[in-house]
């Protein structure tokens, strides 16, 4: 096993385990911390795919900004321990597990046998993830979606402020 495979298997194992642990935690703060670990591992996996810029954005925006917002809201609402919340669902939970197992087996049925195609990354993958290349594509081919994004963010700011305000006149 070479270095690349070791890194991939390590990051994949940690991200899968932290995703499972996230939904098993009673305390939402622990869930949020496991999700942050998951996002860091995904950032590492993006690096193995030669997407350096997206990996940095993943760590800064997801593991940084968005998860800090989540932790801030959890602590603002002082939910702390979730034990008061009734989590036992009975037949609903078993139905959900059965449906998810069905979905997972369908996806595995599609993905597992197809090892013969796309065994190695594209030749220009290494220079594709740089800030220079991303910036060039973003400001030429994807200029209009990029500008629309600013409008979306403005709408989100206004919406969040209005919704979280105490009283709406």
């Amino acid at each position, binding site marked *: 096993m070479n270095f690349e495979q070791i890194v991939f298997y390590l990051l994949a194992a940690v991200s899968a385990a932290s995703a499972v642990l996230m939904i098993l935690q009673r305390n939402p703060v622990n869930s949020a911390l496991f999700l942050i670990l998951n996002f860091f591992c995904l950032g590492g996996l993006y690096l193995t795919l030669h997407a350096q810029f997206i990996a940095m954005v993943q760590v800064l925006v997801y593991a940084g900004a968005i998860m800090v*917002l989540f932790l801030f809201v959890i602590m603002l609402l002082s939910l702390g321990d979730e034990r008061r919340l009734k989590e036992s669902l009975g037949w609903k939970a078993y139905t959900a597990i059965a449906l998810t197992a069905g979905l997972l087996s369908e996806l595995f049925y599609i993905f597992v046998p197809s090892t013969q195609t796309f065994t190695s990354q594209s030749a220009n993958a290494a220079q594709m993830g740089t800030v220079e290349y991303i910036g060039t594509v973003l400001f030429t081919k994807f200029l209009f979606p990029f500008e629309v994004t600013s409008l979306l963010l403005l709408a989100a700011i206004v919406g969040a402020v209005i*919704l979280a305000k105490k009283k709406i006149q």
Partner: protein
Amino acid sequence: MIPLNFYLILSAFMFCVGVLGVLVRRNAIVVFMCIELMLNSVNLSLIAFSSYLGDPTGQMLVFFVMTVAAAEAAVGLAIIIALFRNKQTVNIDEINILKW
């Protein structure tokens, strides 16, 4: 080299964990975090495809998904705060005022 479908299998597994979390958990904030997990697993498959096909469009799409996820997180958490202020709970079984 690692074949493309290893990344897709990991992505599928994480997506299913997110689906299970949304269906089973009752805490609105944890449900919301599971939605973020699903968005991220799809991002992983997009970047994997982008890198193996040599096409930057996948990475651009991930860039926009991240923007939408940030906006969604801000608005969704504001909705959860407003709900908690009105009903003193984040249990999604008790938040059923839209149910006919």
